[in-house]
């Protein structure tokens, strides 16, 4: 299809050699359409982050092809990769270690803007900070990381990525270390920007609650294999694959009590939880 931004075909990644070889990603194929939020979910060690690194060109692919707007990006040289990063940007998990603690935000962002012309860089910087809720760039630019909250740091990181006006933003567990209230704010920023800037977002998370909130489509990974992919509604509320079903059954619910949450809680049985979609008991908080 023409409006697919990124297409992965049979992508694999093997670490090590011979009997120590570990296949972290096995024969994964998917496509990201323009303006779409796609979430990759899976447990720790399922290969989600390896996949993200390969998409970002931070790690060579063992086999398979990855095309970005029709160009093969699996075998890029250094210059090609620099060009690629003008279109594909990332936000990582840990907003505490992603900053040089001795640099102000201004200096940090200036380093990233070296990918751009000086003049364009300054303009984009203000624009990008505006997008993530810093209407007064001066408020934040001369601050050191320790003067910002985790959510603010993560927003600066998003602004850093946005300066390139990327076509594709890869967010690898970008909200996992934030408190619930900050997390929804950052997720709202991501989804709003997608609409405003026509960006595609590849959102990697282990948290199905977050996937359910932001995703158009969901890809499920287990031990390096992509076991299921489809529209978020279908995958989350009507999972087909055995693994996805088990994963969803184990996710604790907030408003729907689980089957084994009966008065005799301790008699916990391995029965899966009630299918999501059952009407929640009791009154709700008003929204």
């Amino acid at each position, binding site marked *: 299809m023409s409006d697919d931004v990124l297409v992965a075909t049979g992508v694999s990644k093997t670490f090590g050699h011979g009997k120590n070889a570990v296949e972290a990603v096995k024969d994964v194929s998917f496509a990201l359409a323009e303006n779409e939020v796609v979430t990759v979910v899976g447990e720790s060690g399922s290969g989600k982050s390896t996949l993200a690194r390969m998409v970002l060109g931070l790690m060579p692919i063992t086999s398979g092809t990855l095309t970005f707007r029709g160009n093969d990006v699996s075998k890029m040289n250094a210059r090609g990769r620099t060009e690629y990063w003008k279109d594909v940007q990332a936000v990582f998990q840990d907003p505490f270690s992603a900053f040089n603690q001795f640099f102000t935000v201004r200096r940090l962002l200036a380093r990233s803007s070296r990918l751009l012309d000086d003049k364009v860089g300054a303009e984009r910087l203000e624009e990008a900070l505006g997008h993530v*809720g810093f209407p007064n760039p001066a408020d934040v630019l001369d601050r050191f990381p320790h003067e910002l909250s985790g959510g603010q740091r993560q927003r600066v990181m998003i602004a850093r990525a946005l300066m390139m006006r990327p076509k594709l933003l890869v967010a690898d567990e970008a909200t996992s270390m934030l408190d619930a209230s900050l997390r929804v704010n950052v997720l709202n920023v991501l989804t709003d920007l997608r609409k405003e800037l026509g960006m595609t977002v590849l959102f990697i998370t282990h948290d199905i609650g977050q996937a359910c909130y932001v995703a158009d489509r969901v890809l499920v990974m287990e031990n390096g294999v992509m076991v299921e992919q489809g529209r978020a509604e279908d995958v989350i509320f009507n999972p087909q694959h055995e693994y996805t079903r088990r994963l969803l059954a184990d996710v604790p619910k907030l408003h729907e009590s689980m089957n084994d949450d009966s008065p005799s809680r301790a008699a916990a049985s391995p029965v899966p939880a009630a299918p999501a979609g059952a009407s929640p008991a009791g009154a709700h908080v008003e929204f």
Partner: protein
Amino acid sequence: MTNRLLNAENLRAAYRTPDGKQVFAVDDISVYINEGEVLGVAGESGSGKSTLGAILSLTTRPPLYVESGTLEIDGKRQELGERSKIPRTWRGSVVSLLPQGAMNSISPTQRVRDLVFDVMRAHDRSIKRDEALDRARDRLKSLDLPVRVLDSYPHQLSGGMKQRTVTIISTLLNPRLLIADEPTSALDVSSQKALIDMLLQMLEQKIMSGVVFITHDLPVLRTVSDRIAIMYAGKIVEVGDAEEITERPRHPYAAALLSAVLVPEPRYREMRVFGIPGSPPNLLNPPSGCRFHPRCGVSYPECETEAPPHVGDELRFSKCFWAKKHPGESVPLKAVTSDRLEEADPIGHDPRPAESEQHDDMDGPAPAGRAEGREVSTGGVSA
């Protein structure tokens, strides 16, 4: 008639800074637990949940000092304070702590059985190795876990299995009360569920009589707890039955926090969720009156000056003027949440306290994220 297991009253504990200031991370909190009960404690990073766990488990260490409070477990009373002598036997056998990141506490060069013997010997000098191991073996059998873990090295066990093993070791002495601090945070959902099921099974078998379950993960608390306490800035703002709290929170902060929790339920596909405007206060200089009033959209003038009233009894209450004046109403969420980012997370002169003091009091989602790479089971590759 249920018996009271724990009466902890007027707990106050402060971190002392090098320049002589005191940061009260737990400020005049009372906690009551009935026999057989699981009390969940929730709150954002820096709200004092782990500090509360440290006080209840008698494991406070400098720079954290307990300033005052009383602890009564099973009728045995203990004054807490700087000079109070707590009998050594209390730790581990009356109260036991399952600390954050406990699964990484098994020595990588020793088998699990060596840790079992170490722990048992620390409490009973005369215990024989075989006795200690027999006890652990019986415990594993009664919980339907494989006995072979005793002969394993930690790297041979998955993250979930390690966490269950440490949980069993921390309860070998049959403590009356177990304090579990973020026990499930670094685990994937299936291991989380297994650990929760095991804890409830242990409670059923009366291995311990009560659990304080500390986590920032509200859906987990809803599954495991009988009652949930919500903490904010060193205070408990609301306590109630798990279902009551999750469905009908009375305190504006509790309501806003709960509304920001994302779970895979169909309605989250449709609606937009908002965060709480403002940032948590710096505890060096907490706001007067109700500590939530600067961020609260339904506050009254008295919220700024007077301590909020206690609405309810000692097991179920909310501390809030609004809740007192509006019995039976649900909190108007529009008033206590905000969609504007510059409002929701303003740049203040004080950065959030919790995150700058992360060293040994790691809190909130941080350990989960940190440990994730490490937690990968026997495969040895963190993907």
